[in-house]
């Protein structure tokens, strides 16, 4: 890229107040083109890959299914459909290990070894011809959820009621977690689909302004998307934001771009903002234009203990072990396996669970990154307060949690904490702040009369 382009990104970058600057580690995989994961023998598709009710299976053991074919329908309004990632035979519908650590119902499919795995689904009606309700229903049928990690059903989010006014449509391409680069690569390599998907959504949302927010450490994504938007003649503002964690949290993005806060207990839409992850918007375009429901996603497999860090387009249901082996396997130095990034990721005991819709990354760290730091008493240095993007007092919350004073914790806004981990990251005494706040939050919720 040219110098002037780089300078264009260095003009005053918008951001939120507080936050932290962990090392980024993006260079392990941010220039690796997305590779397609070869088909494996068997896929396990949990019926619960989203927030809400599990999907309801429509297939039985022994049934032949086609790639992209519906295998489970939405189990409720807050639920989405599920599709077969390959041509193959259903071998079982039963309980299998889920990445969340539980045993949950899943559909197992044995890949048809003789199939070419061409996607052969009937064309969709184009969104421009649909009424809004039909559009919402189509997204639910496409199985699309937020691909940033939370996996909230997209149709629920996009289904604005009469009195919800969306003034700003914001696409989240911040990807502020260290190590992860899947959204980055998607923005660079699927720029046209992203702009097209945005256009489709905007057709129904009719926001006054459309933004794509990208942390400034992805200048190629900013440039590619600006070019793609210009080519498509679609008015969207691509905004580079300061590199700071947790810039990708909805509230922080809104603060950065609009300088507004989302009032406590409200949603972004209450301040006129609709936020969506970029990957979900690409999925939207792929469904309508290519008749491909959500059957695969891009995952970053990275970390110093992965032999060949990569961004991989993976069919849902692929065993994580196969995916990691596709990336060269893990080295003997591996100390922690995480789903997601190092700040909010969840530790995995094993790689024997499948990739699901919410899997954004598999991160394998060595002892060097996770070295245990000696814990001291709180020296009341205030660093955690200056890190907390929600202006909470993590030191006090941590203290109250250790004393078991749950009411006091609630009184000190513990329930507002969204567990970004910035406080634990900065604490020089290595006090497990977010960890104890999490405990406190569940204690508070447990004691609340339902």
């Amino acid at each position: 890229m040219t110098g002037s382009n780089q300078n264009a990104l260095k003009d005053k970058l918008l951001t939120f107040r507080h936050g932290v600057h962990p090392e980024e580690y993006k260079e392990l995989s941010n220039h690796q083109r997305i590779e397609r994961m070869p088909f494996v023998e068997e896929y396990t598709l949990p019926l619960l890959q989203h927030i809400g009710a599990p999907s309801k299976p429509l297939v039985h053991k022994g049934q032949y299914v086609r790639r992209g074919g519906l295998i489970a329908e939405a189990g409720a309004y807050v639920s989405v459909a599920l599709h077969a990632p390959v041509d193959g035979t259903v071998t079982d519908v039963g309980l299998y290990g889920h990445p969340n650590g539980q045993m949950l119902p899943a559909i197992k499919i044995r890949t048809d070894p003789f199939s070419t795995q061409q996607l052969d689904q009937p064309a969709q009606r184009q969104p421009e011809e649909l009424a809004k309700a039909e559009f919402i229903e189509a997204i639910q049928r496409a199985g699309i959820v937020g691909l940033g990690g939370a996996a909230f059903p997209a149709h629920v989010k996009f289904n604005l009621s009469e009195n919800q006014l969306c003034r700003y449509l914001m696409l989240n391409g911040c990807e502020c977690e260290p190590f992860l680069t899947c959204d980055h690569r998607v923005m660079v390599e699927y720029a046209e689909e992203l702009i097209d998907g945005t256009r489709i959504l905007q057709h129904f949302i009719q926001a006054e302004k459309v933004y794509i927010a990208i942390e400034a450490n992805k200048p190629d994504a900013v440039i590619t998307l600006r070019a793609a938007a210009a080519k498509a003649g679609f008015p969207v503002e691509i905004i580079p934001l300061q590199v700071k964690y947790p810039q990708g949290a909805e509230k922080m993005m809104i603060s950065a771009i609009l300088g507004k806060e989302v009032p406590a207990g409200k949603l972004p839409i209450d301040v006129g903002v609709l936020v969506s992850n970029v990957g979900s918007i690409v999925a939207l375009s792929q469904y309508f234009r290519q008749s491909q429901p959500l059957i695969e996603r891009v995952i970053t497999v990275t970390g110093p203990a992965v032999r060949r860090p990569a961004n991989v387009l993976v069919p849902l249901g692929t065993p994580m072990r196969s995916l990691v082996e596709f990336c060269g396997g893990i080295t003997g130095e591996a100390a922690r396996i995480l789903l997601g990034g190092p700040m909010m990721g969840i530790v995995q005991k094993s790689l024997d669970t499948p990739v699901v819709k919410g899997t954004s990354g598999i991160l394998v760290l060595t002892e060097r990154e996770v070295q245990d730091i000696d814990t001291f008493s709180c020296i009341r240095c205030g660093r955690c307060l200056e890190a907390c993007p929600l202006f909470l007092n993590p030191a006090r919350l941590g203290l109250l949690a250790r004393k078991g004073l749950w009411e006091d914790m609630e009184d000190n806004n513990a329930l507002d904490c969204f567990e970004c981990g910035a406080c634990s990251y900065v604490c020089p005494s290595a006090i497990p702040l977010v960890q104890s706040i999490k405990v406190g939050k569940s204690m508070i919720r447990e004691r609340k009369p339902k």
Partner: protein
Amino acid sequence: MVNKPKITISTSPFLHDQVTTPKIMWELAYTLIPILLAAVYYFGLSALLISLSCIAGCLVTEYYLGKRGPLGSPLRDGSALVTGLLLALTLPPGFPLWMAFVGGVVAIGMGKVIWGGLGQNVFNPALVGRAFLQAAFPTAITTWEPPDGRYWGVRGTNLAMPFYQGEPVDALSTATPLSEMKFSHEPTELADLLLGNISGSLGETCALLLLLAGLYLAFRRIINWRIPVAILATVALFSGIVYLLAPDRYPSPGFMVLAGGLLLGTVYMATDPVSSPLTPKGIWIFGIGIGLLVVLIRIWGGLPEGVMYAILLMNAATPLINRFARTRVYGY
């Protein structure tokens, strides 16, 4: 996968900032070295001996009474060393070494250990030691000698025997700038205050070095910049008003800021994170409180100097401030 790696389970986040509590304490200790050197430059070997005595008192107490920290020995977090050095810097150059040692023992013993160790104390340990010495040895601690430029000189009084009650030998007592101001309305040249060619405690004299150290520490975020700003601005403003009302009776704000222990106390003691409030709002209250108290004590109190009591009083108020000075939470 070739070898079977050791996989451990815990919860996120898995990255941690480079700054750790021992690193903070050690960095604080390093910035005290130039100040100690300046003290040796002005007051000779006495300065070094007093510092070593205080440090010894602190380390011995921490070693035998302190909790074993995660680093094994309780000494390794460096905080006892900092306390010892700070205590020494508040003492006059002719102070008997054995008293300095006792001060160090009390600073750690009563200032820190009985509260439960690092992070638990309400008062700044160095100031607890200093307050004890002031109460126990009121004469010795107010016997000031001017800098004499004898680098190898050791003051006779330094070597006084424990509990020896006789008149201090050849003690040449002079007034400090503050007592001169208070009791005879004689201001000192600001340039002398800045460079430190005045009598006073070991570390109080060279204002310039203290200012530089404060800037460095604030820039490195070892201390919270709000505390020095709040204290110094309050002192300057409050004493400025008083000065404007009666310039011939009261000291100028410049003098108030530069003279005595204000800068040492502001940069190193009031900013002690453990005994200062957590929230920005609380910190402003704390700093302004100290500033007001310093001016009140110096101008209208019975003592020429009030920094120590001002800080200790606000330390005492800190748990209360912490409870009530809340942050404004996002979205409220």
